[in-house]
């Protein structure tokens, strides 16, 4: 069975997070882009940490977050 819910990932270098539901449109990743579909050589836009050093998380957003960019 495949768990198809959209996931969140956090950069272990700086705490930046990637949310599959939101994507990163300003970095060419439209909303809904799956983590597995992001290139292996992709790095954290804030600190340069490689994709492999992100961890999947199930931490809820604080009230009022995520704020629209």
């Amino acid at each position, binding site marked *: 069975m495949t768990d198809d819910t959209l996931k969140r990932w956090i950069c*272990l270098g*700086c*705490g930046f997070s990637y949310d599959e539901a939101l994507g990163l449109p300003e970095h060419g990743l439209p909303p809904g882009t799956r983590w597995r579909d992001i290139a292996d050589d992709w790095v954290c836009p*804030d600190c340069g940490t490689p994709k492999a050093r992100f*961890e999947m998380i199930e931490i*809820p957003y*604080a009230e009022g*977050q995520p704020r629209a960019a």
Partner: protein
Amino acid sequence: MRNSFVLHADERGYNKILSTGATASYVGGHPDAFITRFSSFNFGEYQDGRKGFGRIRVFGDEAFYHPGCSYSMHPHHNFIICAFVLEGRLTHINTLGGLEELGPGDYYAFSAGSGGLHEELNRSAEPMRAIYLWLLPDQLYLPPSYTRGHFDAAAGTNRITPLIGNDAGPVKISQDARVSRLVADGPGTFRYRPRSAGHGVYAFAIDGTLHCEGVTLKRRDSTGIWGAEEIVYETGRGDTDVLLVETIM
């Protein structure tokens, strides 16, 4: 079910980060300055050890050498970054407006939340030694916060003193975790009751000798125990100084 691991001082990850060459933008204080870091857990691309413990992701035993030695101003989100100064003077600067000098016994918790930058600087010729602890938060993108505390070793001898927690201790954080300090001036028995069987405690011997679960920890050794109703720590002869981090697993 009770579980544990033991990590000896020499089994930790080690990095010496220079203020020249490839890491010059990361570490300030040219040309002699450098940072040494012993990592109990993963730290970015620098170590391939244990991934973490509960909500702990970084436990760094670090030293900053030579005036100007620093982690230059850099951004964070979400992580709760705590520093406990052991020796020397640490200048901590953050984008919440903090510009603080901390000495031995001083500590802080900087919750990066929705975004913040910080710099960690040693302005003195004496080495600055500190423990850096990073915890995941229980919510993403909280308002950032910075709180400073002081551990008074004289008042806190032969007991377990709460430093940081979501419910206990003078510094509050948004995570099901507690940080305490155990300082003893001789042999003693100290009982720690985790909040639940779902919590674990990481004990790091800053100095001295600590006996726990039939294991003897010496300076900079550590042990993580989880699933225990009670954990008994016995301090050895002389002075012992231990940092205890309890976290939901």
